[in-house]
């Protein structure tokens, strides 16, 4: 039974729910420093440990051209394209799809010269991003202009994809980004974006629930009934 007493680091990165061993569930709020570090390492992504972001996509710049043909006098023109994709594989695929459609250069007849990921500086200020897009609905194609508040373009893009999926059932594959820009406050079109840009915006937080501070402490089974509301001193009464 000794192996249960000694806390060992998990062999593989298991999900919390699949960590069925009793040892993890029985732990009280007094955590050993080792456990906390393990928690931190698990929750850390590639980004800074405290960044909370919805990043679904990354920004890539791809440079490509048609392959030079023997006997051609001029060098084939080089094209550069900005693509939003979750990884390089999909970025390349999107690049060649558009090269084919717009420039009549196929993947077999072309060469990718460079692919760079554009990494923005970590979030320091909130901006309004305007995105012009074209998407395919069940009955046709539509153009749209959408605005999102975020600290970086990739975050705004991710919001857009989630938004389109939720509002129009448009999946990532059917959406083409036409143009993106940072919108200055005076040029904001959407009322909701404008209202949050206002420096005096304020609202109370309602329907609060208490939850354990780390996902690891979320208990599968509890002896008490769940608390449905948080007693907070938010009102005068």
């Amino acid at each position, binding site marked *: 039974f000794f192996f249960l007493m000694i806390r060992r680091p998990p062999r593989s990165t298991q999900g919390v729910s699949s960590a069925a061993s009793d040892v993890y569930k029985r732990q*009280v*709020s*007094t955590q050993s420093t080792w456990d906390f570090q393990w928690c*931190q390492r698990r*929750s*850390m992504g590639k980004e*800074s*440990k*405290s*960044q*909370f*972001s919805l990043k679904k996509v990354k920004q890539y710049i791809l440079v490509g051209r048609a392959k030079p043909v023997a006997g051609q006098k001029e060098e084939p023109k080089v094209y550069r394209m900005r693509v939003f994709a979750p990884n390089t594989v999909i970025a390349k695929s999107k690049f060649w799809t558009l090269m084919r459609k717009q420039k009549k250069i196929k993947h077999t007849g072309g060469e990718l010269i460079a692919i760079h990921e554009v990494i923005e500086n*970590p*979030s*320091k*200020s*909130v901006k309004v991003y305007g995105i012009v897009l074209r998407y395919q609905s069940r009955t046709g194609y539509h153009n749209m202009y959408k605005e999102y*508040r*975020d*600290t970086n373009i990739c*975050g705004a893009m991710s919001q857009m994809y989630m938004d389109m999926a939720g509002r129009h059932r448009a999946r990532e594959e059917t959406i083409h980004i036409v143009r993106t820009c940072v919108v200055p406050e005076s040029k904001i079109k959407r*009322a*909701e974006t*404008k*209202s*949050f840009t206002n*420096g*005096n*915006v*304020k*609202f*109370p*937080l309602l329907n*609060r629930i*208490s*939850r354990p*501070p*780390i996902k690891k402490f979320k208990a599968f089974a509890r002896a008490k009934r769940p608390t449905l509301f948080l007693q*907070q*001193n*938010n*009102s*005068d*009464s």
Partner: protein
Amino acid sequence: LFFFFNDTATTEIYTRSIVGSVRCVQETGINAEYMGIKYIRDYMGFKRFVQAGRVAYINYGVDHGKVCVIVEVINSTRVLVDGPTLGVPRQVISLRRLALTDHLLKVAKGIHTKSLEAIIKKEDLVKKIGESSWAKKLAAQKRRAELNDFERFQVMMLKRQKAYLVNKDVAQTHAKKPKKAGKKEAKPKEAKSSQYPDIFHFTQN
């Protein structure tokens, strides 16, 4: 003067507090003109708001347990947050991970970290937070969680002694003043601490 804690008294107190909290009207986050009607709402008795300068406590994630300042509201679910001397890097955080406190700093939206640091130092925010009752409660909880077995035994003994003394006091009060029907007096659960020795303070740091 005795206070009668029967039903009518509680409703009186309730209505009084609502009247006191209705302030001048103001538009809220979602723009009224967008809806086509002038949508006006009062504070409805709320005291703590998500706003630039609001001090908030992070209760989930890697930074949980730390205090930060809301720098800018991004949308209804996320805010840009910063805590220069509080150990919180400037970051976007979900409002689900925050608990608002009573403290509010006078801060323009989108304030830079350095300027915020100066304000935090000027207002002595760390000290103010430490003085608040919930910070003290958290500290007590933390201390309680850190108790070793012997300390827990000591706490048990102290609780037992306290209970004995309180019950003794209550019994004596009962003996002096017989209970009258229809009159409810607020019985002092906590004994007058000045009379009794120092054993009532559990946190013996």
